[in-house]
């Protein structure tokens, strides 16, 4: 009983393959335009891919490979979708909104309302049953939308940034609620928030440009990110390249030529294999001239941005970041465009296989 999908959508440059276990919640992370929502639309049956196949348990959702034309329409898939906006039907009461799923699958009005009451109680929204969606706050409406999705008893729950339209007070409440209802359930959740991934997901997938670039257990991905996006979420600098005896030979980027990064090798990292070097922005110091003397790394960079970061200043140079004190920043006279050296001790750099 697993969910397996393999889909190509050429118009949106999407090509992914993914499997979910019986009661597994997977968070999908990635920059805007990475194809995350497209993937959910394909899974829900709202968008027909150019090629691929998908199964949910023993049901074929679609099979377009080898001239196949098998296609299960959305209403027969058992994949409820919860979007950024609650999209409650404005003409139905809260109770009838939640009863919509069971009613549509053939339950009587009494039965479906009974189911609706159960799920409204489950999301602490019983007192809203008689209201119209127009009379709810954003947080209340999204809770009702969660109840409505669950009341349809989906085999797979698809959540597309369910917290992003909520204000900062309503989001934690909904996050706790989702943690409770998602446990023991199969779900795909798109999020931009590390906290969502850590709290709700067993596993994360990072998508970039329509491809899965990294996947693994949530904690492992944030502890040892291998993609630029996950590194950004985890708050570390990441350089990709080839593992060497005492560090990493980086791949040349727009900002930096190929250079050698000295660092601590992970036990499993073998010289010659692809790897990454990771180090926190707080371990980076900034000098106007190249700092010599091993074991230190000195990267010649041009500053792109300066922004406040807690009680420090975060200095960005392309994909790299350094956290320094405001007084140090003032002393160095940093501004966007300044050419400086990011210096980091070899002992602060972790090198591991990608």
């Amino acid at each position, binding site marked *: 009983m697993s969910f397996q999908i393999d889909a190509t959508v050429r118009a949106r440059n999407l090509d992914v393959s993914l499997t979910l276990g019986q009661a597994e919640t997977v968070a999908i992370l990635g920059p805007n335009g990475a194809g995350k929502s497209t993937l959910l639309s394909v899974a829900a049956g*709202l968008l027909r891919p150019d090629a691929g196949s998908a199964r949910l348990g023993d049901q074929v959702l679609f099979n377009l490979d080898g001239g196949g034309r098998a296609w299960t329409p959305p209403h027969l898939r058992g994949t409820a979708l919860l979007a950024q906006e609650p999209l409650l*039907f404005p003409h139905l009461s809260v109770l*009838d909104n939640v009863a919509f799923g069971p009613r549509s699958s053939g339950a009587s009005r009494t039965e479906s309302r009974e189911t609706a009451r159960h799920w409204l109680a489950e999301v602490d929204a019983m007192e809203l049953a008689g209201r119209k969606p127009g009379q709810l706050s954003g947080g209340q409406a999204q809770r009702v939308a969660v109840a409505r999705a669950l009341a349809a008893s989906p085999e797979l729950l698809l959540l597309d940034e369910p917290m992003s339209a909520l204000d900062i007070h309503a989001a934690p409440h909904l996050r706790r609620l989702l943690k409770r209802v998602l446990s023991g359930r199969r779900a795909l959740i798109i999020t931009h928030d590390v906290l969502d991934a850590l709290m709700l997901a067993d596993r994360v997938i990072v998508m970039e440009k329509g491809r899965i670039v990294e996947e693994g257990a949530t904690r492992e991905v944030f502890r040892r990110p291998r993609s630029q996006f996950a590194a950004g979420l985890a708050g570390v600098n990441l350089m990709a390249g080839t593992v060497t005896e005492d560090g990493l030979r980086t791949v040349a980027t727009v900002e930096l030529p190929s250079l050698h990064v000295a660092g601590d090798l992970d036990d499993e990292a073998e010289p010659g294999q692809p790897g990454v070097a990771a180090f926190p922005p707080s371990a980076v110091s900034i000098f106007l001239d190249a700092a010599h003397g091993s074991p230190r790394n000195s990267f010649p960079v041009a500053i792109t941005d300066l922004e406040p970061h807690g009680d420090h200043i975060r200095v960005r140079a392309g994909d790299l970041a350094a956290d320094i004190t405001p007084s140090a920043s003032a002393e160095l006279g940093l501004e966007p465009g300044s050419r400086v050296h990011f210096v980091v001790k070899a002992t602060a750099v972790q090198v591991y296989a990608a």
Partner: protein
Amino acid sequence: MNFSGIPRWVYGLAVVGGLFVLLPLAAMVAKVNWTQFIPLVTSDSSLTALGLSLRTSAASTALCIVFGIPLALVLARRPFRGQRLLRAFVLLPLVLPPVVGGIALLYTFGRQGLLGKSLGLAGIQIAFSTTAVVLAQTFVALPFLVVSLEGALRTAGNRYEAVAATLGARPTTILRRVTIPMVLPGLASGAVLSFARSLGEFGATLTFAGSLQGVTRTLPLEIYLQRETDADAAVALSLVLVAVAVIVVGLSYRRPHRADLPAEAAA
């Protein structure tokens, strides 16, 4: 007062425009022979014509709803080859002189018409019957419903329908419980406009259905006929038609508030 951004001279032209509509109505009301008003509008022929008008207009509005909803859905929700052409043809009766519409219907459903011949063999005569009145009215009124509903459907978008589908609703269930209830205000105003257009229909009716008392002579035809012989009766009946139209349009533009829509409208 809030800033409106309207130049002052616009108000002047708006007043002239308003008067242009109101003044003729006032002139007509001034002409009404009030002492004879009740007998004039309750005469046999008047009541027959009014009853026929209301019945046929109700029937043609029903036909507009039955065929207009699918047309509007097809035009609003899914692009296809020839969609613009289909829209142009559906809207054609809006700009076509009704007489031309009547002639076209005659060559379709008339005794020697495209479909009329086969229908005649089956023993069905449509031209110059009450059915012909309903068809003529439907022909001219259908675009009003389609235009108004297509706009409402486009504005509403189909995101709610997508959610409903993932919740397990079949396409027909979605149409009944989500789409139609959500565009109900647009559908209602479209239906009212269609009814009003049917009520006022003259040219196509006269051409295609003729003017038989109690069968095809609707109120506009009766008014036109009376104008030749009894101007007072024509004016009185005109006032009745104006009153019916005002009531119908007035009722429809009291749009229901979203939150006040009946909870179980479509359940």
